């Protein structure tokens, strides 16, 4: 659904502090939705790896652009994968 902030002309980074949009760009479709992935498998290490950072932490939603539901499922899958040592818990 279009948000009121979508009608702003402001597309650049480094906006004035009063704008709540912060650093995320104009509303992008989630990568998982675009690829039509409905089931996030904890065994799919390649997929999950693209959602963890260099140090092994789960990346926040504002960086990956996934929906809230997808983020919850991703989180669950990543934690399971960590449990069975398919993904690291932490990397220095």
């Amino acid at each position: 659904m279009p948000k009121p902030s979508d009608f702003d002309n402001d597309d650049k980074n480094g906006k004035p502090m009063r704008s709540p949009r912060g650093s995320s760009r104009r509303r992008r479709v989630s990568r998982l939705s675009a690829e039509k992935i409905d089931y996030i498998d904890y065994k799919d290490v390649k997929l999950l790896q693209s959602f963890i950072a260099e140090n092994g932490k789960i990346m926040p939603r504002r960086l990956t652009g996934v929906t809230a539901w997808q983020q919850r499922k991703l989180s669950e899958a990543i934690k399971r994968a960590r449990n069975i040592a398919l993904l690291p818990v932490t990397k220095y």
Partner: protein
Amino acid sequence: MRSYEVVFISAPATTEDDITKLTSQLEHVVNDKGGKVTKIDNWGRRKLAYRIRKFDEGVYTLLYLESNGREISEIERRLRVTDFVIRYLTVRTDEDLKRAEKMKTKRKNLLTPRDNDDDFDMDDVIEEELADDDN
């Protein structure tokens, strides 16, 4: 009928024989309680993401089950007791797979040609629809 996935990691020095014996034991348990083992996957030796019990590698084995769930505690008990199993995980998958199917069919029904598809995320619309269904 619920579907489960049981994955367990065996120590790298374990013989294939031991693992096959264990899986056939587990299959027995499942069949006795009225379930069915649909698939047994063996990933073989694999590097672990972190050290478990001083091991850096492990043999991964997966069991896919269809059952009512009564044998899960027995399966886990056996895995716990077995010496060479260093970790195991049981996951129930039927709800998630069911939802994935629902999403797929909704996707087909809801998709109408639009000029500007990046106004909103189709999945958000689908999730809203599914949330309404659940209420």
